[in-house]
């Protein structure tokens, strides 16, 4: 990956980023170089422990790397206080992470509030976002525990977008949802990404989701990037066997569904 121009043009640039937890010899991520262009939708995939979540959290400094530099909009993230950086980067949490004691409207408005927006402006932004994530306006007064899982994650996304960030980070955002909700919400998310012109980085272990939503897939294994390309590139020309297996899975499943439709018996192929 070339530095220089990529570094300048990228919305997010990671240069030689390494992170170890404690004093172990095992690296969570090791010597990662990655430039993410403005407006791209990047999925980071890999099995548990591959380092994808660590990498994501390094971007908004929820985790501080031991080594390397991270630039957001060309500026090193360590140049300003972590909380200021985070107020300008939307973050959707694994397991949703809504504040249970705050109403839906307060949850959505929490970052604008921290940024010191005037109250009326926060209120109109909350209404706007509820519409954007396709929830009725009167949901603002509800408490999070009165909502379904899918509705809650819609609020999670609305909260991440509240302060109009250019960058949206998502950590397995749909992992806890049923398949139908997952698909609907994934599509809604992709739609928002386009209409708002976001740069989106999504961590997922669901290769289906990655293939269908992202325009670039980064595969991690044991803290290193082992594949990086468009879904098409990785499907057609995987760099190694493991990536081939990984990418083949959606195709295989789609093939079996197709075979079922064609009248084949519903047996597991040997």
């Amino acid at each position, binding site marked *: 990956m070339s530095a220089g121009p990529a570094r300048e043009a990228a919305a997010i640039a990671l240069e030689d980023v390494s992170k170890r937890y404690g004093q172990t010899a095992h690296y969570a991520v090791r010597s990662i170089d990655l430039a993410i262009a403005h407006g791209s939708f990047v999925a980071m995939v890999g099995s548990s422990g591959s380092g994808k979540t660590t990498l994501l959290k390094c971007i908004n400094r929820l985790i501080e790397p031991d080594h390397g530099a991270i630039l957001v909009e060309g500026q090193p993230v360590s140049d300003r206080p972590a*909380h200021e950086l985070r107020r300008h980067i939307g973050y959707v*949490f694994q397991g949703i*992470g809504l504040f*249970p004691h*705050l109403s839906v409207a307060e949850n959505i408005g929490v970052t604008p509030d*921290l940024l010191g927006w005037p109250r009326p402006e926060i209120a109109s932004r909350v209404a706007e976002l509820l519409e954007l994530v396709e929830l009725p306006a009167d949901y603002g007064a509800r408490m999070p525990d009165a909502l379904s899982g899918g509705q809650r994650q819609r609020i999670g996304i609305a909260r991440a977008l509240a302060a109009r960030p250019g960058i949206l980070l998502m950590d397995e955002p749909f992992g806890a949802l049923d398949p139908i909700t997952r698909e609907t919400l994934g599509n809604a998310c992709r739609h928002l990404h386009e209409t708002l012109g976001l740069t989106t980085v999504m961590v997922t272990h669901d290769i289906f989701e990655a293939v269908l939503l992202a325009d670039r897939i980064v595969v991690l294994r044991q803290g290193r990037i082992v594949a990086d390309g468009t879904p098409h590139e990785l499907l057609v020309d995987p760099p190694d066997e493991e990536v081939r297996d990984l990418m083949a899975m959606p195709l295989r499943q789609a093939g079996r569904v197709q075979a079922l439709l064609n009248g084949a018996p519903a047996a597991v192929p040997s």
Partner: protein
Amino acid sequence: MTDGALASALRALPEYLGYHVLLSAAALALGMLLSLPLALSASRSPRLRWPLLSFVSLVQTIPGLALMALFYPILLALSLASVSLIGRGFSALGFLPALLALTLYSMLPMVRNIVTGFANLDPALIEAAHGVGSAGARRLWRVGGPWFAPAAGAGRRAAAVWVIGTATLATPVGQTSLGNYIFSGLQTENWVWVLFGCAISAILALIVDQLLALIESGIARRRKPRILAGGAALLIGVLAAAFTVLMPASRPGYVVGAKHFTAPSVLAALIGQRIEAAGLASTLRSGLGWAGVLSSFLTGHPDSLMDYSGTIWANVMRRTDNPPREAMLREMAEWLKREHDIVLVGPLGFENAYALAMRGDRAETLGIRSIADLAAHAPSLSIGSDYEFFARPEWRSLRDGYGLRFGRRREFQSTFMYRALADGDVDVISAFSSDGRIEADRLIVLDDPQQRIPPYDAILLISPRRAQDKALLSALESLVGAIPVRRMRQANFMVDRPREAVSPAAAARWLDSQSSSSPRENRIDD
């Protein structure tokens, strides 16, 4: 003249309850002000957490009364330092030590609940708070605040209940509280008063607990009316207490101090009545305990009080010799004037020395009439005393002079000490020679042939602040020599007797009517 116990208890209620509420509210407010920032910083710094939690737990292991008492020497030293620095002191007894002790007491539940509330915060929520860009105190408040509110609320309620209960122990350090019912009641075996004090204190604790619970549920469920209603009720309670208690203080009265024993309370009431008979205002400051009475003069309060010559001779002047009564009084008056500008008005006319007493029948059986006789039997006898006696120089002097070695030593609250003697639990007690129970219980006061016990004349003192106050002096001079020991015993017994007991004030009125009819009767010594 005899007061119904309940009627007299109700009459004292506004004052006792008012002080109790003010004291508890001040201690809780101060405790909260200290606990919140301390607990919040301890939540963030493990290095602070351990020492803070240990400290507040340690405080909790000190008995409440001892904690208040411990503040007395500290505050006294501070007050004396302030006198020498800026010429003004403050009272080391009363409100201040009670407030400080209760404040410390209130901190454990509040600090611990906030700290554990934070420790139990869901890490995912903390990360979420970080993720949305919260920082520092705002993060703690945004995420933690409402989250730990129930835990902190429970801590607050526990603290309130503890403080309101423990505030009854403020009475012995001279702070009027509901404890006055309990301590006076114990002293005079007025069980109605004891129960009344306990009940009112418990009801107060329950009401405050429920009001705090109302506020808490208002916070948790975001119902403003509940928060406002609870807050308003608490505020009204405190304001009403302040109004009740602080209004009478607007009359510029002379403050009369009294130890929390029968004779001193009766005499304090009598002194107050004499001051008022002279057309001046007076306030009783009852419940001053221990030897702290004279020291409390030095820091400004009260204006007048009675004490015993032997106490001042031994404890204040640190004298161990035993001169004749007249010489001792003369020397004491000079010393007090010279050293502290305290005016010794004169002896009241009776003595209230420590004395060893036995049941008449028992003494006769054993053939004991004097302490010298007692010494031979002592190893097979048990002695009961109040909490003070064995620590006093008189006891050491008796023990060493007569070679007293008792088989067993027990300490009692003085009422129970007389009971123990009557029931045969102990054989000898350290009585006070003016105690009404000596005659009532047919006790024999043992002779002191070696004159080991110094004279304990009741004497009247005026504080340095009022040293030049002619009006006060002339109001009190009429009491000099006016109270013979027999009258004092009768007055004491009127208060102490199990049936038809009267208030100290009523006994004082009786005493006043007696002494004016036959002034300057000679002292009678045992």
